[in-house]
């Protein structure tokens, strides 16, 4: 598989703020890639570098095999972008903006445009300022999905959309995937990411802390286990990777690092299992772990080393 986006060791500073501190990102062609991180982690900065709006201080970035800064214009023929906060011109109607953006890219499919306008329930005759936030977002989404491009870069594209429109959006992304287009989706809506994305990258403080398929990532987190045993548990507390152990008679509750699950199960069956429930980690837990780390951890050195360890 070819790569749609490859970024390695990307650095970008604004004055004394290091927005990107060696960020890595790989997006395969044809996949929907989730791009996650707390506010201020550097998602939008990365996207702006990928669009050639900002010039990276150092590091390598390639979009569809080309340099996003030097080949910006030629590249943008194949790229559609939806920002998280769409601003429109007050005296241009939504329809005019959709058509303009389409023509400024590789072209626009009129049938798909009409279809999308209907599905998103957008009134294309209204003018800039009279749209609500959600409707401004729809203008950019229709323009992006109707454009004839290979790569969609969506930066929190559904902010302001109602749940029905959120569903329409997810349907559109599925269609894009079916057509073999690549989508980079930056989002905070975890159900959306879980539903849509083949792989995700989580970034924090300008570096990638985790990347992989959701199954891969689940592997890195803890599974909760509740078991009722035939006999008293033995030695569970000393097993590596066991957390929050709570033993009440024959009832055991614990959390275990998913890659250490094997030893725990062995120990449980040794005592005899009467009932067992195992809950895989939710995406929320996955993210919260990283997002909360952001609040507690401050040393930047430990960040970069742990990032290496996890991505390996």
């Amino acid at each position: 598989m070819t790569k749609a986006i490859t970024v390695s060791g990307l650095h970008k500073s604004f004055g004394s703020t290091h927005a990107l501190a060696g960020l890595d990102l790989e997006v395969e062609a044809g996949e929907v890639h989730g791009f996650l991180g707390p506010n201020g982690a550097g998602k939008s900065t990365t996207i702006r570098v990928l669009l050639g709006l900002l010039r990276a201080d150092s590091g390598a970035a390639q979009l569809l095999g080309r340099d996003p800064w030097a080949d910006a214009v030629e590249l943008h023929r194949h790229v559609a972008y939806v920002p998280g906060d769409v601003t429109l011109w007050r005296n241009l109607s939504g329809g005019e903006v959709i058509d303009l953006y389409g023509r400024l890219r590789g072209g626009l499919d009129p049938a798909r445009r009409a279809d999308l306008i209907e599905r998103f329930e957008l009134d294309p005759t209204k003018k800039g300022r009279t749209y609500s936030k959600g409707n401004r977002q729809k203008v950019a989404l229709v323009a992006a999905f109707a454009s004839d491009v290979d790569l969609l870069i969506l930066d929190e594209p559904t902010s302001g959309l109602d749940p029905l429109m959120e569903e329409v959006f997810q349907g559109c992304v599925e269609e894009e995937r079916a057509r073999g287009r690549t989508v980079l989706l930056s989002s905070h809506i975890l159900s959306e990411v879980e539903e849509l994305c083949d792989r995700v990258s989580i970034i924090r403080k300008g570096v990638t802390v985790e990347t992989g398929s959701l199954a891969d990532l689940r592997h890195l987190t803890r599974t909760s286990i509740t078991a009722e045993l035939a006999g008293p548990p033995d030695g569970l507390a000393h097993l590596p990777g066991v957390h929050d152990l709570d033993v009440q008679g024959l009832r055991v509750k614990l959390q275990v690092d998913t890659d250490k699950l094997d030893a725990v199960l062995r120990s449980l069956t040794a005592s005899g299992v009467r009932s067992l429930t195992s809950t895989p980690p939710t995406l929320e837990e996955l993210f919260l772990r990283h997002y909360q780390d952001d609040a507690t951890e401050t040393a930047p050195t430990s960040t970069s080393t742990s990032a290496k360890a996890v991505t390996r």
Partner: protein
Amino acid sequence: MTTATARFATRPGGSRQLAGTATLLRFALRRDRLMMPLWVGVIGLLVVSMPNSLKSIYGTAAERADVARQMLTNSSLRATYGPVFSDTLGGLTAWRIGGYAGVFAAIMSLLIVVRHTRDEEETGRQELISSAMVGRRAPLTAALLAALVANGALALLIAGGLAGQGGPGALALGLAVAGVGMVFATMAAIVAQLTESARLAKGLTGGLLGAAFVLKAAGDSATADGSSVLTWISPVGWLEELRSFADERWWVLLLFAAAALVQGAVAYELAGRRDIGMSFLPTRPGPATGRLRTAGALALRLQRGALLGWSLGFLAAGAAFGGITKGASDLVGDNDKTREIIERMGGQSGITDAFLATMVNMLGMVAALYIVSSVLRLHGEETSQRAEPVLANAVGRLRWALGHLTIAFGGSVLIMLLGGFGLALGYGAELGPILGACLVQLPAIWTLGGLAALLYGLSPLLAPGAWGAAGLALLLGWIGPALNIPQTVMDLSPFGHLPKLPGGDMAWTPLLVLTGIAAAATATGLAGLRRRDLST
């Protein structure tokens, strides 16, 4: 439940329309802490430094009396400078700078008012503010009070600074300048209720100010003592009617007060009758499909309204000034004695040409404001985040910028030609020489446009500096000669290097050099734009 009701009941009725005004006023003054002192300081210093400058030009009482006599007899000079009511240093100060100070105070005031009213609504910031304990009319009140603070400070500065020339005259001039400011502050308050766009509100109020200025000039040329009805219907003319330092007619101040109060009341009434963010000129729906194909077409679409406004304004201003000049030469023709005086000074056609040249030059300097505003549309598009999605399409920065620059530079040609056309039409003169004179202004206009492109291209932070440069050129051109400013400083303005046409000798070298400078600056700006980060 009862406690909640009681809490609401403590302030009954509609008395809370102004809630939060004090906080909003402090907030406005905080936001304007740089802009306001700068405006007040520059205008105030201009006025206060005038007596000294005049003293160095017209050293003796006899010379000053001579100036006054010239203004009394020569209507075309009067149209440019206004009548003199007293040949004291104070009287000459009021004559030479009063009108311009009033115009600048008006610009300052309209900017302050629109900035804190329509601008806030257009950007959506007002919504959050109004969701707090802020009365419906508090934002407008705070904006007008902010303008009052600025104009009050200006009045004090002028009254104090000129006190040496005569206390009452200084006070009258200070109050009159502030009065013009407040009339246009309240006018801007009305216009801001009518349009949804802050830019349009500023443009329309600026257009009304231009009309008031032209009316005053026409009135000045028509009569020697300012008794023309044209002067009386122009708020800028009232400043003259007050006759500072020459037996002040204090009751004229009532005109300012009445106009400001009536306009303020209208604005208040309108503000209370509409929803936030809405306007009385409604937004119509647009087409469902668009025909814009390129970034250049988008730029034209975005700028066409402003260009249309400038075009009409230049045509009208040209025609009005042409008409004034015609009246002036007719007057000269009728009166043997005046003709004799003027002929001794260089002949009738010489005077008319000189006057036309002054008018063309003035149009040119105002066109510099157009080109700066048009070039800085790039800046506005970038900082409002609208450039980002456009540039994320297959649009190069160069092409995007060139779209706007073409309109800026081409538009300056268009409006100068229209201004010249109006001038020739109003005067009834041959079109060719006047159009030629208008085109000769272009290299200077382009130089300022090039400077704007240069500053913007290097960094969006520098871009507003282009306004400073255009303002400086305007100041030097209008008032520089009277201030006796050293030639090296005068040479800073590109307009100072232009041949004086019609009437003067054509000189190609400065035109080519200025055009070269403009081209180099624009190219450097574009090169910078290609290299730098887009502001986020």
